[in-house]
C-alpha cells in the first residue's frame, strides 16, 4: 500500500488549506507596532489640517513665500496664490508650477493614486496637525489647483498615518517621483547623515540650510556611507561631492536650487575663490554656463573671450549661442516674447546675415524635429 501523507498542523500553509491566510510578520517595537505596522489606514484630510515638513530636504516653496508660510503668517491657500503670482513673473517657477498643476488636474481626472504619509503632531496652539512625511508635492498640487480653480470647498486628500516617520522614506519617495536638484540632493544626504547620528532639527532654527550644514562639520560614523548608498543610489564619492555644495551661502543655495544648477557646475564654482562664488552662480544662471565654462572663470574671471572661443569646437560655440537665445526668449512672458522675436529678426536683417541664417535655422529645426520624433 502506498505510504499516506501525514500532516503536521504546525507546518500547514494556506495553500494546503485552500485558503489565503494573511502572512503575519514579526515586528519589532511593541504591541502597537505589531498591531498597526503593515495595516494601512487611509483617511481623508483637507490641506488646512496638514503641514509640510520644514526640514524636508527637497524644498518646493519659493523662499519669499516659504518663510511666511512656515511662520504661520499665511495659510496654504494664500501661499499657493502667492506662488501662482510669482510664476507669472519668473520662468523657473512657471515650469515647476505647470507640473504641479498638471498633477492637481490628474487628481480630479483619475483620483489620487498614492496617499500622503505622515504623523499627527501637537502644535503650540494645542491642536493637532498632520505633519507630512512624503507627498508634499501632492499637497501643493491640490492647494494650487484649488486656488486656481477657485474652489469653494477644500479638497480632501488621501493620507496614511504612519507611526514613525523616517527621513529614509522621505528621501526614497523623492527619488521615485522626481530627482531633486543638486542642492536638494545635498540636503538629502545631510539629512540622512544627521538622522543617523541622532541630530534632530531644531524648530528654533530660522534657516533650514543651517541645519543641513551641520553635516559638514560632523564626522561620518563608520559604515554610514555604505548605509546611505542604496538610499541615495550614489557612490560614496559622489555623495561627498554633493554634500560639499552646502558650503555655499543660503542665498546662493536658493538660487542654485531654483535654477536646478547641476552638481558639476557648483563644484567648479566652489573651486573659485569664495569672493567669486556669487558672480559665478549668477552667471551660470543668467548665461547658462556649463561646468567647463565656469572652470574657465578660474583662469579668467571675465566672460569667455574670443581667444577662448577659438579653442572650442564650432558645435560647442553654436550650441552655447542657441541655448542663450532660447533662455533669453523664454525668460519673458508669452506676450513679450513676440516683441523679443520681432526685435531679433529686425536686428538680424540690419546686421545683414538674415539670408545666411534662414537655411541654418531651417536645418537645425528639421534635425531637432527628427530627434524629438524618434524619442516619442
Amino acid at each position, binding site marked *: 500500500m502506498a505510504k499516506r501523507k501525514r500532516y503536521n498542523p504546525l507546518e500547514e500553509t494556506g495553500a494546503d488549506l485552500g485558503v489565503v491566510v494573511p502572512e503575519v510578520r514579526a515586528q519589532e517595537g511593541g504591541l502597537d507596532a505589531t498591531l498597526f505596522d503593515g495595516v494601512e489606514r487611509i483617511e481623508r484630510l483637507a490641506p488646512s489640517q496638514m503641514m509640510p515638513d520644514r526640514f524636508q530636504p527637497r524644498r518646493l516653496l519659493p523662499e519669499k513665500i516659504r518663510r511666511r508660510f512656515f511662520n504661520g503668517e499665511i495659510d496654504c491657500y494664500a501661499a499657493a496664490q502667492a506662488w501662482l503670482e510669482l510664476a507669472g513673473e519668473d520662468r523657473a517657477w512657471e515650469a515647476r508650477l505647470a507640473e504641479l498643476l498638471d498633477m492637481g488636474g490628474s487628481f480630479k481626472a483619475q483620483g489620487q493614486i498614492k496617499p500622503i504619509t505622515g504623523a499627527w503632531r501637537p502644535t503650540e496652539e494645542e491642536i493637532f496637525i*498632520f505633519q507630512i512625511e512624503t507627498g508634499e508635492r501632492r499637497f501643493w498640487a491640490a492647494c494650487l489647483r484649488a486656488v486656481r480653480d477657485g474652489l469653494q470647498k477644500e479638497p480632501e486628500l488621501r493620507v496614511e498615518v504612519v507611526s514613525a516617520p523616517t527621513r529614509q522614506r522621505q528621501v526614497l519617495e523623492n527619488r521615485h517621483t522626481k530627482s531633486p536638484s543638486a542642492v536638494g540632493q545635498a540636503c538629502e544626504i545631510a539629512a540622512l547623515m544627521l538622522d543617523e547620528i541622532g541630530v534632530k532639527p531644531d524648530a528654533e532654527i530660522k534657516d533650514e540650510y543651517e541645519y543641513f550644514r551641520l553635516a559638514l562639520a560632523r564626522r561620518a560614523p563608520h559604515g554610514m556611507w555604505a548605509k546611505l548608498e542604496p538610499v541615495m543610489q550614489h557612490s560614496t564619492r559622489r555623495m561627498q561631492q554633493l554634500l560639499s555644495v552646502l558650503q555655499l551661502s543660503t542665498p546662493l543655495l536658493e538660487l542654485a536650487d531654483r535654477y536646478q544648477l547641476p552638481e558639476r557646475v557648483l563644484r567648479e564654482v566652489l573651486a573659485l575663490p569664495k569672493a567669486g562664488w556669487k558672480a559665478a552662480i549668477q552667471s551660470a544662471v543668467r548665461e547658462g554656463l556649463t561646468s567647463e565654462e565656469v572652470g574657465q572663470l578660474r583662469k579668467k574671471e571675465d566672460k569667455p573671450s574670443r581667444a577662448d572661443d577659438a579653442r572650442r569646437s564650432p558645435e560647442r560655440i553654436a550650441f552655447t549661442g542657441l541655448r542663450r537665445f532660447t533662455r533669453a526668449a523664454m525668460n519673458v512672458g508669452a506676450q513679450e516674447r513676440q516683441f523679443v522675436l520681432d526685435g531679433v529678426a529686425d536686428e538680424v536683417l540690419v546686421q545683414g546675415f538674415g539670408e545666411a541664417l534662414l537655411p541654418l535655422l531651417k536645418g537645425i529645426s528639421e534635425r531637432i524635429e527628427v530627434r524629438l520624433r524618434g524619442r516619442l
Partner: protein
Amino acid sequence: MAIVIAVANQKGGVGKTTTAVNLAAGLAIKLRHEGHSPGKILLVDADPQGHGLLAVGFGRHLAAPEESLAALLVETPPPSIQRMLRQGIHQSNLYYIPGNTQAMVAARARLPSLLAREQRLARALAPIADTYAYIIIDTPPTLDDLMINALVAATHVLIPVEPSYLGLSGLKDLQQAIDQVRVHLAKDDLHILGYLPTRCVRQRVEVQEIVDYLRENYPARTLRPIHETTDLTYAHSAHMDVFTYRPPRSRRDGRLESSSRATQEYAWLVNEVVQRTRME
C-alpha cells in the same frame, strides 16, 4: 500623562452626565486660570445617549459614524483621534469627541465579537493622553462593554451615588466589576476616587442615613453631597455646564462658584479632585 476619570454607576439617572460635564468644565476653568500646562480637558461621552455632549458642544456635537467615537471603538485600525477632537463652545480648553447615537448603539452590539474589546477606548486615547491634563469619561447606565472600556481606560473612578435603596443596590456589582478589571486586565493602578452622593434632597430622611452609611464604610472616599437644584436641570436645558449657566460676577481670581448652590458644590468637587489626584 492625563488623569483619566471614569464617572461610573450602572444605575441610570444618578447624575453621571451632570457630574461628568460639570467636573470637566470646572477643571477647564480652574486649569485655565492657573496657567497649567497642559491645561486641556477632554470629555469623552461613552454613553450612546450622548447627553454630555449637549452641554459642551451643542450644535457641533454630532458627526457621521466614521467621524465619531464609535469608529474609534470598532474599526481596525481606528481612525486618527486627533482629527476628531473638537473644542467646546463654552470653555476654550475643554475638548470633546463628537458622537453618533446610532453608531454607538451599533458599536455596543458589535463590541462583544471584537478582539481586545475592553481595551479599545484606552488604545484610542493613548496617542493624545500626553496632551491633556484630565480626561473625563461619562459612562452608560449599564455594566456592558462600553462601561468596561471606560474602566480600562481610566486611572480613577468617580461613582455618583443616589442616596436611596435602589441607588445603593448596584454599587456592589460595580465594585466587583472594578476589582475584575484590576485583576484580569492588569489595571492595578485603577483607583476609586470617591463616592459622590448626588441628587440629594434634604427633606428626605433616607438621604442623610445613606450618606452617613457611606461615610462610615468609606470614610476617606465619601465626598460632599451634591444637592438636587433647579440650576443643574436648567443648565442642561440651556446646553451649558452649571458654571457657565450661573457664573460668578468675576472670575478674575479663578473663582468657580457663584451664589448658586450647585456651583458651590461642584466647585468643591473640582478642587477636591485636583487635590486628590495631585497628591498621588
